[in-house]
């Protein structure tokens, strides 16, 4: 359905970020994933009577690190509260979270849009809380299975101001947050494992009018789904309004497989969470000294890394942006550049051949079969003339398929560029002797035509040497001899 006139879209995000601690936020239980259900559910996580929570220092420090990275105010005192609701994967009957006094106050994040424009998205606040367990609806013949391994895993919930005006802004902001938390090392950033989850608040209005009623689409766990879910919900709201209807404030669930969303029919009173300060936990105090130490220890952040790539490696802003955005890509690129001794070549390979292969096989760069060290070795061989760029692609392919290091592949498959001019000369002589007609043709041509016609001989030599001859050297020899 086509929409008439201008509509403005207003988007705010709530982002849940799982903190990469060893143990849970209120208990010394492992946060490891991938094990059998309920192997990491201690008496505290199970909400057994008589147990008491003790706060994990590293969770506090990670939240502060995030706050410092987005220039936010860090609360010297923050308070945990109970958010009360009943759900089987929440054994205590309340989630321990923060409300009135969160640890991270107002801050901001600058994002870059595709057209190069920059935009600031303000952070309203970020608070610490515990994750819930998992409800498994399959395989339990009509019942629901509860796995509490995740219950109590530390989260920060980052709440943005409604500063985004479309899917592009929202995705750029989400990606930037991903880049920041992974650069800080406070989150593993594996979206497929739910390390980061997004709730998107969306409303639309005519320009100049007050904010429209918003809906919340919950639990999006990929950038692509986020983009699609926003487009879907914006279109739905405009349809409803243009048909004279009203937007109902509600929570919606998006299904990525079908690209559809539905309203979660939650009871009206379900949202009465009756927050109150948790009597089991004292206010968390953070000293100036501690904040200063964390500030001094902050690792390089994405913006600084990008600036360094432009400065140190002379990369274009576009390339620097692509390579610095994800910490995994950045680490890979820097290692390859260092081992290869050529940052530009490394950049081209990482964004070209490697990215294409990773994409084709749906692999993450951290799982690349070609290690950064191996790519560096390949670049070295390319630089010192051991192999041509055509052969380099062949070596890369072999390395990807697990046939060993580039040096071993070059050696084992005899791919070294022919540098012995004596041997090459023989082949050139042979090619000339075998092609009297073409030689005649070449000699009768003028300079401009000769340049074209020499291609035939180069091709023949490359064929005879199986691509191992240095094309420049071949050209030179041919010109001398013809």
């Amino acid at each position, binding site marked *: 359905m086509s929409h008439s006139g201008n509509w403005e879209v207003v988007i705010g995000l709530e982002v849940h970020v799982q903190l990469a601690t060893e143990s849970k936020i209120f208990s010394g239980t492992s946060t490891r994933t991938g094990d059998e259900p309920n192997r990491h559910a201690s008496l505290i996580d199970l909400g057994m009577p008589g147990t008491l929570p003790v706060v994990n220092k590293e*969770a506090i420090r990670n939240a502060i690190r995030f706050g410092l990275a987005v220039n936010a105010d860090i609360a010297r005192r923050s308070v945990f509260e109970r958010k009360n609701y*009943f759900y089987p994967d929440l054994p205590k009957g309340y989630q321990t979270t923060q409300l009135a006094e969160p640890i991270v106050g107002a801050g901001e994040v600058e994002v870059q849009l595709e057209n190069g424009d920059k935009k600031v998205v303000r952070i309203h606040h970020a608070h610490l809380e515990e994750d819930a367990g998992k409800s498994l609806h399959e395989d339990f013949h009509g019942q629901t*299975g509860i796995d509490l391994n995740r219950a109590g895993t530390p989260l920060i919930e980052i709440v943005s101001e409604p500063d985004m005006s479309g899917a592009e802004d929202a995705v750029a902001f989400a990606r930037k947050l991903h880049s920041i938390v992974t650069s800080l090392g406070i989150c593993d950033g594996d979206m497929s494992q739910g390390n980061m989850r997004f709730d998107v608040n969306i409303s639309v209005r005519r320009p100049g009018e007050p904010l429209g009623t918003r809906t919340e689409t919950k639990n999006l766990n990929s950038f692509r789904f986020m983009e699609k879910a926003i487009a879907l919900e914006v279109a739905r709201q405009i349809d409803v309004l243009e048909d004279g209807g009203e937007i109902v404030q509600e929570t919606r669930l998006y299904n990525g497989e079908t690209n559809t969303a539905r309203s979660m029919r939650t009871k009206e009173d379900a949202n009465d969470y009756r927050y109150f300060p948790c009597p089991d936990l004292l206010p968390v105090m953070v000293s100036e000294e501690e904040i200063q130490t964390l500030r001094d220890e902050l690792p390089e952040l994405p913006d600084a890394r990008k600036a360094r790539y432009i400065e140190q490696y002379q990369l274009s802003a576009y390339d620097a942006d692509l390579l610095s955005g994800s910490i995994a890509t950045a680490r890979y690129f820097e290692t390859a550049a260092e081992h290869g001794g050529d940052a530009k070549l490394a950049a081209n390979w990482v964004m070209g051949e490697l990215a294409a292969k990773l994409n084709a096989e749906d692999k993450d760069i951290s799982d690349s079969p070609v290690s950064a060290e191996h790519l560096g070795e390949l670049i070295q061989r390319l630089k010192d003339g051991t192999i041509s760029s055509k052969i380099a692609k062949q070596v890369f392919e072999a390395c990807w398929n697990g046939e060993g290091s580039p040096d071993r592949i070059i050696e084992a498959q005899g791919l070294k560029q022919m540098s012995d001019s004596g041997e090459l000369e023989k082949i050139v002589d042979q090619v000339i002797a075998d092609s009297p007609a073409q030689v005649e043709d070449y000699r009768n041509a003028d300079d401009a035509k000769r340049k074209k016609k020499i291609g035939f001989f180069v091709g023949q030599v490359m064929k005879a040497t199986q691509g191992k001859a240095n094309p420049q050297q071949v050209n030179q020899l041919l010109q001398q001899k013809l």
Partner: protein
Amino acid sequence: MAIDSKVVARAAHLARLRVDDSETAELSARLNDILGMVDQLQQADVDQVEPLAHPLEVSQPLRDDRVTEPDVRDKVLPLAPASEDGCFLVPRVIE
């Protein structure tokens, strides 16, 4: 705010407490008494007073990020009314 039987019923539902209709009248009267006391407290001048999160003037001790809790699954799972494949079983929950 005055508490009537409807509010009592709702509060009871949120807390998953079974409250008989015959009890709501008395409960609302008692809750209203408590709220009367709260109203009295509201009159105190607290402009210069920080909100209190905890009566003790100490801050939260923190623990190091180490795994210290053992796996207790084999002890606790049998205590549940039903379990299967390492999971606690509950009546089907559909969102």
